[in-house]
């Protein structure tokens, strides 16, 4: 099998130990909950979108190293992106973890490419992104952020 180190890169440990953009988001206007029933991972994603641009994004929840790091890296990648750009990233990321070719420049997200060699873990890496998709679709539903 592919080396465990391809999956668990230092960057992933770093984001797992110190997740970026972790916690509630005051003033969020997009929200979705993600759940992976297989392993019990839960994730809540809050975004603040203005004029089609993601101004801020934060997540909460608990999960494995792969899902936590993926969510953390995603929030970093999303800030300042338009919704259309976020959708392109989502698709590119999806292709990458499925082991398919992509022309999308994924930047730092590429550290998760190793996931494609671990089919059981693809869902962990994708959870945050599927949650993002749901959050962007729920348009301007206001969310309460107590």
């Amino acid at each position: 099998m592919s080396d465990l180190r391809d999956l668990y890169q230092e960057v992933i440990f770093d984001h797992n130990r110190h997740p970026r953009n972790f916690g509630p988001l005051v003033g969020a206007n997009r929200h979705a909950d993600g759940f992976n029933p297989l392993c019990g991972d839960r994730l809540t994603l809050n975004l603040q979108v203005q004029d089609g641009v993601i101004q801020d994004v934060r997540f909460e929840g608990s999960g494995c190293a792969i899902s936590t790091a993926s969510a953390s890296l995603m929030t970093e990648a999303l800030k300042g992106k338009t919704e259309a750009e976020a959708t392109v990233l989502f698709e590119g990321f999806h292709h990458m973890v499925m082991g398919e070719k992509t022309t999308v420049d994924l930047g730092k997200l590429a550290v998760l490419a190793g996931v494609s060699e671990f089919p059981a873990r693809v869902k962990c890496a994708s959870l945050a992104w599927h949650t993002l998709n749901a959050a962007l679709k729920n348009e301007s539903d206001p969310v309460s952020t107590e």
Partner: protein
Amino acid sequence: MFDVQALRNEFPILKREVHGRPLIYLDNAATSQKPRSVIEAECHYYEVMNANIHRGVHTLSQEATDAFEGARDKVRDFLNARQREEIIFTRGATEAINLVAHSWGRSQLKPGDEILVSEMEHHANIVPWQMLCEATGAVLKVIPIDERGALVAGAVASLINPRTRLVGITQVSNALGTVNPVAEIIRLAHQVGAVVLLDGAQAVPHMAVDVTALDCDFYVFSGHKLYGPTGIGVLYGKRSLLEKMPPYQGGGDMISQVTFRKTTYNQLPYKFEAGTPHIAGVVGLGAAIDFVLSVGLKAIAAHEDRLLTYATQQAEGFEGLKIIGTVPGKASILSFVLKGVHPHDIGTILDSEGVAIRTGHHCAMPVMDHYGVPATARASFALYNTAEEVDALFGALRRVEELFLK
């Protein structure tokens, strides 16, 4: 004498490698591996006597019927049921519970009646009762568990009352390993006229079960955790109850006479076995029972106890490891969490070392909620596991530690 090496030779799959390492299979509570005799029994059935049962006059059909019904007798013996008519073949423990919930439950329950289950049940012994409650207006009550993973002392006695109609409880917990005091529960339930369904899915591979001595009303188990095939299981029910219950599914084999005006149902056990069953699976289950009895349940339990004790000692010395489920006298299940590492990551790293364990909620989400964890890692031991494999498990856990905590 219990010769684990000789027994290992009976399991072809144990020779394989995973990621270039010998397979160390410690996910036996999910499903156990199959000895050659079981694989060959299924194969032999298909190669030599495959035919539909209970309906042909030709030789093959007769032989297949004999093999199928012969396995029913083995199950009857295995559980020490009084009559072969009390043994119903199902797809597994899950279907057996659904059968009882549907057939017994819908014909018996009225609004306000109570069903009692425990907090440590597998979803298979929760959801069918929730569905039944929704359909009938009955109410589901839950026996809580304590920090060790035992039923809270006195809770059963205080929850059972004259409205209680059924108690559904696992004999051995798949998530914790706890062995429940089922004899006492049955006694308490019967005092108020409630019936008891025992979920024996985790019990039958580890201990001799005597449904007559226990006096339980229903007992269910799956073949695949007992070294038998997947897709086959058993419902034992007391004849007096089964006779009164309406059929679960309609179709061939379960009828005695069909006209468009009126259909009469077949007698037990066929009333509950609509359609062509998993004949090869039943034959395989019979072979699995023969295998287990030839090794001896006492010897199996003693071997697994030694492994569990050894593994528990190592676990207790492992920094940051917390065992989930610490009741004395557990069955061979070691559920645990490791500080700072999600069980899912443990599972992947162990797999890279050839060690197969289960990680997740073990179809017992209420147990996870109880302990406030999203998931646990679980090693579960079978008759073919060895102390060296326990060492390998902890060696692999050290690797997890190296990767994650250094």
